[in-house]
């Protein structure tokens, strides 16, 4: 099944006022340190980096490591003077990539 993500922002966003962006991604975050029931090592499969861009400007980024649980939840604060398109991008092992975009209109 296709990868899914949940992105949540407050209903009303005001110019110059900080708000919280919450994002959950469906991902196994396999550490690479575990074995399967036959004793074979499970290859690492994690999200390596999360980036949030408003237009072309990077507004938030995080590096992820094997200690993060499956279905990683990330929350961060933004304060904007102008609206635009917020692009959330998760990239990881085995060429994993997932993008969510949210249109932001400021009141």
């Amino acid at each position, binding site marked *: *099944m296709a990868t*899914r*993500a*949940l992105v949540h922002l407050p209903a009303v966003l005001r110019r110059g006022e900080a708000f919280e962006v919450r994002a*959950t991604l469906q991902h196994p975050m396999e550490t690479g340190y575990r074995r399967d029931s036959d004793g074979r090592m499970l290859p690492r499969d994690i999200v390596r980096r999360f980036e949030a861009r408003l237009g072309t400007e990077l507004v938030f980024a995080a590096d992820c490591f094997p200690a993060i*649980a*499956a279905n990683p*939840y990330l929350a961060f604060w933004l304060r904007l003077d102008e609206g635009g398109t917020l692009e959330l991008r998760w990239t990881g092992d085995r060429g994993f990539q997932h993008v969510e975009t949210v249109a932001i209109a400021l009141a």
Partner: protein
Amino acid sequence: MKRLTLLLAVLVSGLVAADDRRSGFADMTPAVQALQRGDAQNPAMLWVRGGEATWGQRAGAANRSCADCHGDARQSMRGVAPRYPAFDEPSGAPLTLAGRIDACRVRHQQAPAFAPESEAVLGLEAWVAMASRGLPIAPPADPRLAPWRAQGERLYRQRIGQLDLACAQCHEGLAGRRLGGSVIPQGHPTGYPLYRLEWQGLGSLQRRLRGCFNGVRAEAPAYGSAELLALELYLMQRAAGLALESPAVRP
């Protein structure tokens, strides 16, 4: 007047004491409670979104979707999940909610049944159950379910496995105390299918029960077996009246 008030107070406290059942939610840490309370944080919503998509997808030889017959699940499925497991006429046996979804899929969509615990069936179950969130668990009074419930209670009180433990010994006798670091809940299935942090995913009540069988080192019955069905029927009867929390989060 004073005497009457006193009498009333005694009566009321008696009523409260008579029902000291509590959901496992009450025993969780505030952080995990917050995870369940907020739909923006609850990871089970990833499966719910998938269930919502499956609900609208046409499938099988009949080329019909759930929505083609049932419409919007948020209205049409309200009050359905708290009634399950319920008796199914054609098969002459009770069905769990997941079993009902599968039966509907085979009979009306003419599509192959889902694999037990597959993402698709858990998603659909969560999507249907979420329509009844907050409603009291209301097991049907169908007399044909009574022998199943009696069988379920027998299993609940029977000592099993190498540890020679019955469900009741922990979940009635020791509920509220600790096993290792975790609080032993009363074992009311109020939030299934639920996201368990230990599983890092969504799972059904049968998965949880099988985990308990393994925990006391007994042989776990297969998914969909009569034993798990009977236990599920008894546990839902035992939790009757408690609010449905699906999809819940548990540690």
